[in-house]
């Protein structure tokens, strides 16, 4: 075990994955400088420039090339530097990566991982703070994974690389160095498609993922201090959604708050709320509440605090459902 940040845990996962000759890492600045967030630091020196590849600045090209590599039997891990920079690659992701298994009836597959740092909170430049996960979740044929702890980051990334299908792997920028965990040095995986019940409780279910888990945990601490016992669920995988875990929890607590950083409309929180309405309505003691970013362009540094859901907003929503 070694104490690692989320970024270091991801680095450890990639380092272990690269022991297989089928794994290649490619992206802008991933080699010589170790990536803009240093997640791939040292990998090129250890595994060589033929398999840790600094590419031209061309996101569509990176994903299209990785797609071809995956079809030919490699396990590429492509990095796109920021969520806002992943948009030029939509055609490749949506029209090709997500569809090849279906349009070839299993004959060809694209088992690649697309790593995308996402989210705000670090006062970055425009287009560097987006949370557009819903677009990927809404695309049939993709799995979408978001870790919120160093342990899960490593285990889920190794599982994503092993997965026979394409995985969009979202990395919360704000948490890269915010938390340290004891992380096993060797290889292990965490299952894709399974949410984690972080805290068991019977009074209210707090559901979130990725960067927002920090606010959710803080809110849970505050509720516990008031004598409320919340159940906390980290979705970890956004597609396929672990409906069973979410529904079972709310069937028990009767109250739910769903938290996402992304804009409010048609997001993951909306989907969770819809599922609860379909499958847990008669257990609900209060309407499900969403705490989300707004349907505004994510603001720049000086106004960011007005956009990002805060612990206070999560608490307010929890109190609202508890009082109902």
């Amino acid at each position, binding site marked *: 075990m070694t104490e690692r940040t989320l970024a270091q845990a991801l680095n450890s996962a990639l380092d272990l994955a690269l022991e297989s000759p089928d794994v*290649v890492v490619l992206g802008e600045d991933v080699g010589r400088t170790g990536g803009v967030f240093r997640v791939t630091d040292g990998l090129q020196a250890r595994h060589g420039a*033929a*398999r840790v*590849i600094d*590419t*031209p600045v*061309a996101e*569509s*090209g990176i994903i*299209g*090339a*990785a*797609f*071809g*590599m*995956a*079809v*030919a*039997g*490699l396990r*590429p891990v492509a990095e796109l530097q920021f969520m806002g920079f992943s948009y030029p690659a939509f*055609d*490749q992701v949506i*029209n*090709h990566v997500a569809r*090849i*298994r*279906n*349009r*070839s*009836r*299993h*004959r*060809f*597959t694209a088992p690649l991982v697309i790593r995308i740092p996402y989210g705000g909170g670090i006062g970055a430049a425009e287009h560097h703070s987006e949370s557009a996960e819903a677009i990927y979740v809404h695309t*049939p*044929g993709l*799995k979408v994974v978001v870790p919120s702890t160093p342990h899960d980051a490593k285990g889920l990334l190794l599982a994503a690389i092993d997965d*026979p*299908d394409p995985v969009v792997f979202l990395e919360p920028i704000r948490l890269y160095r915010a938390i340290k965990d004891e992380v096993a040095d060797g290889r292990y995986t965490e299952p894709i*498609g399974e949410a984690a019940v972080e805290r068991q409780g019977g009074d209210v279910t707090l559901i979130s993922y990725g960067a927002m888990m920090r606010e959710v945990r803080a809110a849970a601490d505050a509720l516990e201090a008031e004598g409320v016992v919340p159940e906390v669920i980290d979705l970890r995988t956004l*597609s*396929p*959604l*672990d*409906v*069973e875990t979410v529904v079972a929890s709310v069937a028990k607590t009767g109250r739910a708050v769903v938290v996402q950083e992304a804009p409010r409309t048609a997001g993951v929180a909306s989907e969770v709320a819809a599922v609860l309405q*379909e499958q847990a309505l008669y257990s609900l003691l209060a309407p499900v509440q969403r705490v989300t970013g707004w349907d505004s362009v994510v603001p720049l540094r000086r106004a960011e605090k007005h956009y990002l859901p805060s612990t206070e907003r999560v608490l307010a929503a929890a109190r609202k459902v508890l009082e109902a």
Partner: protein
Amino acid sequence: MDEPSQILAPDGTLVGDAPVPVERIRELYGDLVTARVFDRKASAMQRQGRLATYAAFEGQEACQVGATAELESRDWLVATYRDAAAMAAHGYPWVNLLLGRTGDERGGKAPEGVNVLPPSITVGGHMIHAVGLAWAERIKGSGAVALTLFGDGATSEGDFHEAMNFAAVFATPTIFFCQNNGWAISMPRERQTASPTIAQKADGYGMPGMLVDGNDVLAVLAATRQALERARGGQGPTLIEGITYRMAAHTTADDAGRYRDEEEVAAWRARDPLERVRRHLESQGAWEPAWQADVEEAASGAVEAAVEEAEALPPLGAGDIFDAMFAEPTAPLRAQRSMAAGEGAP
């Protein structure tokens, strides 16, 4: 690079060195005839309502047969909706090509060992796949290469730039073959690029470009052979532009009479890629009407068998739309599959 290279003139005379012996030219001619029989049959079937929209390739047979003639089975072909002749030449069954056009995803399933991706329907996004495939083969040390076919319209897409650039920077064993057929639906080549040729765009990427008469199967074969040798020899990618012509409309849903003159089509009819090979073979004493009839009969037989096989397949069920989304259906897909089958929820 102003004049396209030519080996076989439209009247069938050799104006260069034939890259293959006459027996091989006879085989290539058989492939050209079979392709045309298929193309006309498919167009007819569309008019009968047996196929959905069909994109005829008549006029481009020499590009497609010539470019794939010297691929090895381990090599990859990444082609488009207008490239049935090339895909078939590289082992993709006619039945699959028909199935795709009936609107059936089973057409996209190439047999094991046939390294042909399902045809690209969107324009341009597939060229980079031939870069990734070739790159992977080099990493694996297999010696295989990848060839991609695309049209003049596709060179306007940003994807063309990214694919060419990646291939050249990493010297991947990729062959870019542009079938410049003069038209992208209703827009002429001049509306796609102000560059005098597409081949010369290769200069900007640091790779060789070649311009060939795309209706001359021997010139296409010879150019592709050079590109293959470069690729296999570790010298990286090549761009080949074949000058050809789309004799039919863009698809069966298009009316070419709205945007181009019959005289232009007639002039290209005189440059037919099949007729010049026939004349050449005849001049060599290697063609006679009885053999032509045999070739056409064999082609019709192969195509008719494919039609029968395609139309005899049991129809797809509601469950089939879920079963190839992932290696194993996810829990939400399993639930939706039941819903689609009328079990439980709406």
